[in-house]
């Protein structure tokens, strides 16, 4: 098993290089080697899963620093396996889908190399035994995300989006980096399992533990696109849709939740879960409301991702590892499905992303519309689809936990119910009604069945089937089947709210679009629309702060000091030397250079110093 686990780690990295080199010979080789490697990785993971009996535990010393040894280890338990299945399974489907999506791109070797590198990073993250290997995986993914967002780097928007993604997530990452230092100082170990058990046993100072937990959570916020570090996730939609589906919908953005889940006992002992739930609730609300008004297909999904990841955070924050993690798993699957579905639409519609120019597309791509409907139903939380169970469990948990019932549970409830509104708006605007841009509509091509529709149908089936496997997932992620959290009347209330919202959306966005437009032109509505459309101006504020305070004031002041004080003193000493030289020259004839003038100064200084030394 150990060798299999190591293969899983090494294969994507070497494969990445291989795909690039082969792709340089013929660009089709890049795809085929990636497809083959993706499948191999998935099969290895399945093999690990099927023959799982006890956690795989491998520890190395990465390097010795003086007398300290810095560890590097692999630890694969059931929680890791779930994440591995998501990463490799969806990774494989995504690579498969990219065959058509990236078909016209001249830079395919680079694309597949980066995707494989990303999968490698994700595998490293979820099979990390200690903080160091975890951080490595964490940063590898961040790098791959940066490189893939700005894949079309010759254009301005993707290049800017890459910068934004890197800097926002990096801001979080340095807290994780600092946490490594803190943990090393506080506990002397970086092993995640030992940290959990030490925390539970109360061997670590509680206040410090809280601080570490908050630091790690800041990193999680950055990576999972939560308030206030979410704007990069919206900009990341500039990347290829296959990248959005894999990295910014299904895998990398989950890593924030994974890290909290991995250190769950630590968070419980540090009593830091309420912070997680609170930030989750704010993000869930912001995400769900902003998703309501977006006009770009992918932006709706991006805000929805933010909102659903928040739900998973809330689940963890309310104290239920099972609820949070099952939601993560369910979400990964249906969000990858929705993103890839969006990719199929965008690709067929000459890369237009604006939903207002779609409409009636189910006539052109029936299977895609059906698959996306499955995803939408699951996202809305309608039984028996998978999304229902986890979302219901999360809301129930928040209501039952005395700390989170009230504001947090209300925000969760609103976010949970609103999801039906934005996703049905998305589906209806795209697939139902009349087409609103006949020119574009005429050009829409039917996507290929094997490369595009088949992976979507596979995911749609899996989303449906997962609804019946919830207990199995809960057992895997939390080790035991928890008692069903139950709140009377919740199910009925939720379902009626969902039905009502769906009907409203149908009426206003399909039947009476004219009324919607009239309402939207009201000043108040316009103002609200602007607020939501821009994600509550969070990006605007952060950008303003960095541009005007960090760079415009702070860095500028230091620059001024350097030029006018520190360096001016040095350059000014030349004048001083010139004056001294002027006196000295009176005693000498002939020319002396600046150089020797200072030489003399030096010798004088030397004499003085020796005299002083002699006196001392």
């Amino acid at each position, binding site marked *: 098993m150990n060798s299999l686990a190591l293969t899983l780690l090494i294969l994507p990295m070497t494969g990445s290089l291989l795909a690039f080199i082969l792709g340089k010979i013929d660009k089709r080789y890049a795809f085929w080697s990636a497809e083959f490697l993706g499948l191999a990785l998935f099969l290895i993971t399945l093999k690990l899963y099927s023959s799982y009996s006890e956690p795989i535990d491998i520890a190395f010393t990465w390097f010795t620093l*003086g007398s*300290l040894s810095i560890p590097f280890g692999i630890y694969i338990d059931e929680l890791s396996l779930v994440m591995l299945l998501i990463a490799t399974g969806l990774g494989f489907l995504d690579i498969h889908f990219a065959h058509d999506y990236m078909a016209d791109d001249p830079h395919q070797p680079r694309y597949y190399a980066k995707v494989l590198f990303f999968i490698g990073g994700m595998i490293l993250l979820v099979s990390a035994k200690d903080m160091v290997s975890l951080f490595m995986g964490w940063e590898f993914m961040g790098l791959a995300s940066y490189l893939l967002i700005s894949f079309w780097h010759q254009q301005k928007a993707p290049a800017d989006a890459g910068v934004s993604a890197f800097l926002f997530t990096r801001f979080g990452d340095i807290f994780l980096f600092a946490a*490594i*230092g803190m943990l090393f100082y506080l506990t002397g170990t970086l092993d995640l399992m030992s940290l959990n058990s030490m925390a539970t046993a109360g061997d670590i100072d509680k206040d410090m533990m809280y601080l570490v937990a908050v630091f790690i959570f800041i990193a999680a916020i950055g990576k999972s696109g939560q308030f206030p570090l979410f704007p990069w996730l919206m900009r990341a939609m500039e990347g290829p849709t296959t990248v959005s589906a894999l990295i910014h919908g299904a895998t990398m953005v989950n890593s924030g939740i994974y890290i909290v889940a991995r250190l769950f006992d630590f968070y419980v002992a540090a009593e830091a879960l309420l912070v997680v739930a609170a930030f989750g609730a704010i993000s869930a609300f912001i995400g769900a409301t902003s998703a309501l008004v977006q006009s770009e297909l992918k932006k709706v999904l991006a805000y929805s991702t933010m909102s659903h990841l928040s739900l998973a955070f809330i689940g963890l924050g309310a104290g239920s590892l099972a609820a949070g993690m099952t939601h993560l798993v369910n979400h990964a699957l249906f969000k990858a499905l929705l993103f890839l579905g969006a990719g199929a639409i965008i690709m067929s519609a000459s890369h237009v992303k604006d939903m207002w120019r779609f409409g009636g597309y189910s006539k052109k791509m029936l299977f895609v519309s059906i698959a996306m409907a499955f995803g939408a139903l699951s996202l809305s939380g309608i039984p028996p689809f998978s999304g229902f169970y986890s979302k219901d469990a999360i809301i129930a948990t928040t209501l039952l936990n005395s700390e989170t019932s009230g504001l947090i549970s209300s925000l969760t409830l609103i976010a949970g119910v609103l999801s039906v509104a934005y996703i049905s708006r998305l589906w209806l605007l795209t697939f139902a009604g009349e087409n609103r841009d006949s020119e574009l509509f005429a050009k829409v091509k039917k996507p290929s069945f094997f490369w595009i529709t088949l992976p979507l149908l596979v995911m749609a089936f899996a989303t449906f089937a997962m609804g019946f496997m919830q207990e199995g997932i809960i057992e895997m992620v939390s080790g035991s089947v928890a008692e069903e959290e139950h709140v009377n009347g919740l199910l009925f209330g939720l379902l009626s709210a969902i039905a009502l919202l769906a009907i409203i959306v149908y009426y206003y966005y399909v039947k009476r679009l004219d009324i919607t437009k009239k309402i939207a032109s009201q000043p108040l509505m316009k103002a609200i629309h602007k607020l939501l459309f821009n994600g509550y101006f969070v990006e605007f504020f952060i950008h303003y702060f960095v541009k005007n305070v960090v760079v415009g004031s702070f860095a500028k002041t230091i620059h001024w000091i*350097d030029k006018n004080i520190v360096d001016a003193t040095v350059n000014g000493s030349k004048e001083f030397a010139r004056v001294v030289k002027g006196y000295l020259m009176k005693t000498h004839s002939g020319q002396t250079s600046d150089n020797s003038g200072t030489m003399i100064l030096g010798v004088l200084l030397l004499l003085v110093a*020796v005299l002083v030394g002699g006196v*001392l």
Partner: protein
Amino acid sequence: MSAIEIIFFPFVLALGLSLFFRGESNVSKFAALGLFSYMLSFSLSLFEQLPEEGYLLLGEFLKVERFDFVLRLQVDMLSTIMLTLTSVLLILVALSSWSMKNQALYFSLLIMFSGAIFGLFMSTNLLWFFIFWELTLVPMYFLVGVWGAERRIFAAVKFFLYTHFASMLILVAFFLIYKESGAFDFTLVRESMLLSPVLIWWLLFIGFAVKMPIFPFHTWLPDAHVQAPAPISVLLAGVLLKMGAYAMIRLVILLLPETSQQYAWVILTLGLITMFYAAFMAIYETHLKKMVAYSSISHMGLVVIAISTMSYAGLSAALYEMIGHAFIIAPLFLIAGFFHHKTGSWEMRDMGGIMQKAPYISAIFVLAGLGALGLPGTMGFVGELSILISAVKSFGLWMIVVALGSMLGAGYIIWTLRRVIYGEMSEVVKATNFKMNMMEFLALAIFALFIILFGIMPNTLFEYINPAFSQFSSLGGAL
């Protein structure tokens, strides 16, 4: 060749080459390359001969009655590592200077520099240490002053005077040491012999701080870097700055441990200021090479922090970061110089979209940039992690502020990449042909390989680095 020959042969060779050849000269190029390769194999062979602890005596020359002027050549693990690093850098600098103008003279100066630097790292007599220390300045002065850009004379003179002024302080300190302890050989001097260790400490500290450079003595470096040709910038950052760091470790920390302990807070504070100050300078900078220069100073700040811990782990981390810094900053300087050479501008706004024209060179630039901001998988990360851990161990939890430095690093590096490498092509870039000499590209590729190789397998270096400071492992309780 014996140790003494390897120091003085380069001077003879340099003289011969500069007398017999003019202008373009393949002989000079290959002579330099051959000599540096020999130096590398010589340094590597030293590793096998080194004793478990202490010095390996390579020879004693110029014994004079009644005066300690003996040229005693001794090496230990620390100096052998420095010799190896220097010879690797010299080889790569020679490769990346392949299409330099007036090669005969250029490579003669480079060869002369190599002799001086080998003498510096091998001699344990402070007088000879000082002589070689000053000798490195001479070829450097001409390399900047002749092959530099428009304001090269100003930069060369500023560089020479500033570091020369610092040398005076060092010389005074050396004489004080001799006066008080009766020996010039620093392996024979103990702190307890000295009457005024505090004065000596300050003289040495300021003297070496100029070379490293540490705030507020850093302003000669950006000027020198900007005016120097790219390979000489590599030499400045990779060898000359490391001389300062080496001397700081050898003659401040190891020679005067008690006083250093007393003033560790001074070193630490200045290290932190240097790191943040230079990082903010880099953020505000739009001049590509100045940005790289400030990034280099910022990383030297990290080295200073690591040195100030005065612990086994900290000094090992410092030495690793010194090596990492040399390999990471070198391709940044070389490629920045290459872009300038091709586009004719240093301003980032004149560049943009170079990735489309020169994908492989740009990829190495990105890789080195990622190294500079400390991304895992590169040497930069290992350096930063080691320094973070050792600093936190020595000074307590608040040292996690070091992590903030890598955020600022990400700020200036990523934004620079965006402006220079990515985005739409500027008019200048569109009209430019980015073709590089094969030898120069080879040097870049080797740097890139080192950054990744030692970033993934740092233990190959730490196996040698740790024993360099093994005397600290015996101190009970210390790290």
